[in-house]
Every structure is written in structure tokens, then in C-alpha cells.
């Protein structure tokens, strides 16, 4: 069968949903970061597909930027994560709720 734009979009939506669920459900900080990565990359797929569909480069450009940003996010995120782990030697979300109210 012919793979059309919609397939890609559906795929990206599915991935996005997966990522979202991951963000919501994961208690492990690292896993949570992975989930956000999935989120962003799901979008990349869609962008690539759409830009091909319109054959217009803007979409792909967007995708590249997203990749770059995702990377830097991971950098910063992991940095924070490591510091946190040093201090509390755990990376459990539920641990970090000293501020409330």
C-alpha cells in the first residue's frame, strides 16, 4: 500500500501520546527526560513529512532546530539531574516536594 502523509501524522501523534503518558506517569527523572525527548522527536517526524508534502524547507529547518534544542535540553537537564543525585543520591520525583502550599 501507499504510505501517505496521514500515516506519518498518525505515527507522530501516537509517539506524542506515548511521550505524554511517559511524562505523566514516570516517577524516575531520567525516564521523564526520555519521555520529553520522545515528545519532541514525534513532532520532528511530522515536520519532516509535512515539509515533504508541501515540499517546502521550513518544516525540515524546524525539525533541525528541534533536534538541536532537544540536545541542549538534555545537556542542561542531565546537569541538574546529576547535581540532584549527588545531593540526595536518588532521582525520584516524589522526593522533591519540600516546597508546597
Amino acid at each position, binding site marked *: 500500500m501507499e504510505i501517505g502523509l496521514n500515516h506519518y*501524522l498518525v505515527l*507522530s501523534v501516537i509517539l*506524542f501520546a506515548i*511521550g*505524554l503518558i511517559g*511524562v505523566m506517569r514516570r516517577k524516575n*527523572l531520567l525516564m*521523564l*527526560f526520555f519521555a*520529553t525527548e520522545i*515528545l*519532541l522527536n*514525534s*513532532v520532528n517526524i*511530522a*515536520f519532516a513529512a*509535512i*515539509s515533504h508534502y*508541501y515540499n*517546502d524547507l*521550513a*518544516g525540515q*529547518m*524546524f525539525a533541525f*532546530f*528541534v533536534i538541536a*534544542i532537544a540536545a*541542549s*535540553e538534555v545537556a*542542561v*537537564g542531565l*546537569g*541538574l*539531574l546529576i*547535581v*540532584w543525585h549527588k*545531593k540526595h543520591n536518588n532521582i525520584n520525583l516524589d522526593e*522533591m516536594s*519540600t*516546597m*508546597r*502550599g
Partner: protein
Amino acid sequence: MLSPINVSFESLNLATLVPMIIPIVGALLILIIDLFKSEQHKSLFVMLSLLVLGVDFVALMDSAGIFTKNGTITGVFDMMLIDGLALLSQFIIVGASLLFIPLALTHKRFHEFSYPEFFALFLFMIAGFQFMVATDNLILIFVGLETASLALYTLIAMHNRDKSFEAAVKYFTMGALAAGFYSFGAMVFYAVSGSVEINEIAQVLKANNYEDIGFVLVGVVFLLASFGFKLSMVPFHTWTPDVYEGSSAALAGYMSIVPKIAAFVVAMRIFEFLIHSGVVWLEVILYIGVVVTMTMANIWALVQTDVKRMLAYSSISHAGFVMAAILIGTTQSNSALFLYWILFSFTNLGSFSMLWISRQKNLPAHQQSDHSYDKFAGMIKTAPVAATIMGLFMLSLAGVPPFALFWGKMYMISSAVTGGYTVLALIMALNSAIAGYYYLKLIVYMFMRDPVVENSGHVYVANATLPLKTIIGIAAVGTIFAFVAVNQLLELVTVFVYNSGY
């Protein structure tokens, strides 16, 4: 096979980039200096950043001059868009930054400021925000947004206390999610319009008069969510109080002003045309969002025991209040937004700085948090001047005339009235009344209660140095004598907003 493109250098109009380049260069400069000779005293970097920002400000004024002469400027393949909104918001961003930087020169030693990276990151962040507001290209907005945010996360974390790490992580996670939403929303719009330029999207949608409205709405919802995070609209506000509490008072104050104005401008660019697209329930969503944000934030602020958290919630509610401008979407309301935010930045930065100078290195036994209310009990007796100034800021925030914020509130409510949103106007008014309570609470503590433990009053100015005092002085003057400047501001803002077609 792509055909070679040739572009005349003039059409690139690189001048539009100057205001963003300046801070970047400054940042690099700082890093280089550190490279050659480390262990410099923070004052050096502070002054450098001040200079850089100063230059930046001048550059902005220059392009403002050009704008007033021959209207909106575009450049760099129409990526850059220097219109009234861009200029105004950049003025606010840079101006607020100018006021913020000297707060680093505290009496006590806080170790984030000993890193030159702090200042470098700070300048990068500013550049990010400037990009964010000075374009209508979704990509560039995204890049600017993320640059700024990532820098900000780090700045928060550098405060180097447990709470600040927690804050950073929370903010970061939320930010990441927001980024995801944003990109998804952008993708949807790209899908329906085949463009990433907001005005083109608008044209396309108008052209096929919103045939696939379903997708548009999905896109809107995602964008709304992501900006909800950035603007801390209820229910996306949850990170705000924690992050404010975690980060240093000065930075918190800064965060309550600069990132928001940037986000507001983008929101204005995106939602303005959507609201007037006649998609009714988009308006409804926004309406509800605004009202809920104003009211709930106020209500939560009522029950806070820590002044900083109270101010956090209050700034959420202020954001909601201002968000109304985007809902109303008339020229008056949009100018009101800027007027309000300029006045707000004075007052709010002032009140956060007051907290900043009263920040002790380590917590006394009788206090459960850095800035709990009872810390300020009986302040009038030991530190009358400080108490009076703080009181002024509180009154101004509460919207008591003739102090700064009153004029903003008045003009904003007026815009609601003229825009036909009478009920909204009333809700805004009553919210100011509710808000009155918690600002008053602090005044009551400062002026009418007796100290919990006898203190020399030094505790309230533990952190004070000349620069900090100067900044507070400026803020105070701005707050009290706002009524002198309001007219000029109003005219300027209106002209800029009007000429950029909002």
C-alpha cells in the same frame, strides 16, 4: 536540485540583528575575560553587563527612531520583524535587566555571582528573549524561547541551595513539556497552512476561511497550553510559586517580569488574529482562563504565610489581569498591556528587591521560611524608612492611587469597558479588592503588629549596599511619581502599538 539564490546585502537588513548581537557579544566577552584571568571580582562583570545592556538600550532607541520614521522593519529573509511590539517589549526586557543586574552586588556573598558564567548566561538569556519578541517566525520564536529558558533554568540552579535545585528541576521539566506542546502546536499550524510565519498563517487561514477549523483548534489548544506554562496561567501555574521560592528573591522578581512580557508579545501575535477569526469558543476558553487565573491566584495568595510565595501568586494574578488585554484585543487594551507592564516592573522589581536586601544568609530559629510574614512584624519601629517603602510598593500593587500600578489598572479596566467586556471589567475590579487583602496583610504586619523577637532592624537591610539601595530608590521614585510619566508613556505606547497594527 535547488537553484542558486542571490540576495542583495541591503535586503538582509542586518541592522535588525544588532540589538540581539550586542548582548551575545557581551556574553562572549565576559567568558573570554574569564578565560584569560579567572577569579575576578563580580563587580567587574556586573559593570560590564551594565555597559553592554546600556549599549543595547541605545541600539534599541536607534531602531525605535527608525521605526517611528518609516514603520515596521523586516530583515534577514523576513525572519526579523521589528515592529512596535518588538521594540516596546525589548525596552522592557533590557530596562528590567538593567535594573536587575546591580542586585548582584549584595552585602552578603552569594556564590552564584562569583561565577562569570552567571552573567554570560544572563546576557544570552536576554538575547533569547529579544529574538523571541522580534520575529513572527515560529521557528525563531521557539529558538529564542528555548535559549532563554535553558539559560534561566541554569541561573536558578546556580543559587545553589536544595530548594533552588528542586525549583530548577521542576521548572525545567515543565519547560520541556511546554516546549513539546509548542512544537506540536506549531506543527499543526504548519500542517494546515504550510507556513511558519504567523502573518502568512493568518492570511492562509483567512483565505480558506478556516475550513479545517478542527485542526486549528487543536493547534491553538497546544499553543495555549505551552504559553499557559510560560505565562503561568492557571492551571499551568503550579511551578511558579515553588520556582520563585527556590530562586533568589532578585531573580524571582526578574522572572515575574521579563519572561512574561516576552511570552505576552508572542501570545499577542498569535492569538490576536485567531480571536478575531470569529471562533467563538476560543474566546470563551481565553475568557475563562483569564478569570480563573486572576481569581484563583488571588485566593491562593490570601492563604500564604511567606511573603515571597504571596508575591509569586500575586504576580500570577497580575499576569492573568494583563492576559485580559489579549482577550479584549483592541488597540487600547494592547497599549494598556504595555503601560501596565512597565509600571508593574518598577513596583514588582522594587518589592522583590526589598525582600532581597532583607535576605539573611541562614534562617533564624523563629522563622520557618526566608520571608515569612512574622519576620516583618513591627518593622516600622526598627526600620521605618524600609517599612514605608515596602508599604508603598504593596499599596501600588494593590492599585491604590496615585501609585504606579493604579494607572495601569485603570487604563486596563477602561479598555475592558470600551471593549464591551463590562462583566470582565467588574471581575477585574473586584479581584483588585480581594488582592487588597494580602497586600494589606503585610502592611498590617509591618505597621501594626509588634516584633516577634526584638531586633535592631538590621535584619531588614542585612543585604543592603549602595547599588541595591539605588535600585530600590529608583523603583520607589518610579512608583510614587508615576503619574508624572504616565501621559508620555501612554502616548508612546499607543503610537507604537497602533503603528504595528494591533
